């Protein structure tokens, strides 16, 4: 696998920040109550982590070790401010729903973590790709968790899709019917913890299945010990 392919695979799956590193749990648990909220938060985070990774990588040879963290934080905060202002302008309703969690992207440990662990040691191209992969991996988890919680809690999927995709998306909303009694717990905070637990379990299960199928041909190929 090429170097870049490896970066993408790590960001999306094997080092998924939400499922493996368990970073960024605060926004993950707080705004994943519907699929659209999760998607909006995920995209905002992806933009910030990609841009901050690129910038940190650009200046990595000019910033002294002693002051690197404040510099990183200033860079991240600038991008978050930019994202916040743009969302306020173009996705105002969604911005109001996500509320405090947009400015709080500054404190998301994924972003400072990637800046410190990856971007400050790698060239620009790779840092940008890493940021993008990490961000998309985080977005996928947010979106999946949001969709699961929305279906069990409200019996719908993609409510308020119009907030993100414009008026044409109003018909995107799927519903399990008015008779469906949602399990309220799913859209409350405990539902987020339980749902994330199940997602992590599912990922571990898939990984284990994958290693099992990978090792089977190897052991089958081993020659039988012959008597004698």
């Amino acid at each position, binding site marked *: 696998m090429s170097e870049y392919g490896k970066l993408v695979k790590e960001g999306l799956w094997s080092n998924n920040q939400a499922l493996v590193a368990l970073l960024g749990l605060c926004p993950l648990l707080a705004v994943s109550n519907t699929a659209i909220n999760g998607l909006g938060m995920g995209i905002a985070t992806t933009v910030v982590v990609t841009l901050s990774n690129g910038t940190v990588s650009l200046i990595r040879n000019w910033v002294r070790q002693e002051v690197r963290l404040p510099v990183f934080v200033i860079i991240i905060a600038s991008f978050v401010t930019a994202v916040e202002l743009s969302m306020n302008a173009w996705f105002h309703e969604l911005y109001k729903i996500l509320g405090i969690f947009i400015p709080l992207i500054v404190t998301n440990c994924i972003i400072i973590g990637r800046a410190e662990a990856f971007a400050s040691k790698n060239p620009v191209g790779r840092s940008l790709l890493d940021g993008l992969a990490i961000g998309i991996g985080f977005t996928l988890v947010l979106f999946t968790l949001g969709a699961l919680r929305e279906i069990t809690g409200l019996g719908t999927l993609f409510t308020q899709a119009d907030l993100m995709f414009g008026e044409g998306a109003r018909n995107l909303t799927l519903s399990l019917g008015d008779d469906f*009694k949602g*399990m309220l*717990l799913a859209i409350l905070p405990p539902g987020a913890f339980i749902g994330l637990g199940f997602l992590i379990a599912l990922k571990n299960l898939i990984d284990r299945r994958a290693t099992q199928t990978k090792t089977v041909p190897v052991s089958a190929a081993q020659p039988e010990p012959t008597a004698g």
Partner: protein
Amino acid sequence: MQFPTITSPHTARPNSVTRTMLWVILALIPGTVAMTWYFGWGILIHMVLATATAVAGEAVVLRLRARPVMPALKDLSAVVTALLMALALPPLLPWWITVIGVVFAIVVVKQLYGGIGYNPFNPAMAGYVLLLVSYPVDMTSWVPPEMLNPHPLDPLQTLSLIFTGQLPTGLDWDAVTAATPLDAMRTELDQNRMISEIRQSPLWGDFGGRGWEWVGNWFLLGGLVLLYKRIITWHIPVSMLAGLLVMAMLFHFIDQETHPFGLFHIFSGGTILGAFFIATDPVTASTTRKGQLIYGASIGVLVYIIRTWGGYPDAVAFAVLLMNLSAPTIDYYTQPRVFGHRDQGDE
């Protein structure tokens, strides 16, 4: 003079989980009969449904975890969890809500934490809280006690109502359901009515709601059997009831018209059932003697606080879960002095 001679061995049969659980089930019988008498056949239907779900769920998860299935099923702990949950659920609850609650209790709260002996939370109460938080309307629709019920349902009608949601012709939900005494007291106090006024309704007996206080007495009888058989010790039930009573009497004497008499709290809702059967769960309760006193009393105090100022009418489940969470810490600070060692403070 003759002494009866008993042949050896003289050792008593050791306690086992199965024996303990069997006694708990037996001790639940009087209260269950009383509840069925006052609140109809729904209780029994839910007990059967919950037990079947719990046993099936436990078997499936044990198979998935590649653990032996039969020993775990034979210890009857899943059955006790199911029975306790069924006693806490409203008698006319739709069947699928019961199934969700029991599956959550057994699969998530008990087995995912490692099965019997490893669960930090009481499975029955966690399942109940899940349902109460998720389906508040269904979970607070009780039926009126037998002597106040104008339309008692026969077993077949109850069965059809639980499984198909089909009400007998000519009746609607409001005709067959009623608020519990705790719920009614709470609603009316919120409307600034005084207790002496509220208690004139036929809903009330001597201490708690009519029907409810007798259910409490019969559970108390079962609890005393458990005490007598030494399945439980007195520490948790007595301290829990005392904690609740002290709080309730204190506020009752401060203002008699807005805080009901202490025994109202003892004989309402799940207090007695909780004190003897739920808070005493050996896995999730505190294990040291001193710790059990603190644990029980805290549950009692919390029950009063949540009932009086909280968002839900009854509070035993929430209080038990909160104290389950604190039990390890309580145990840590109440370790008894090992014989021959000094107290830490003496050095």
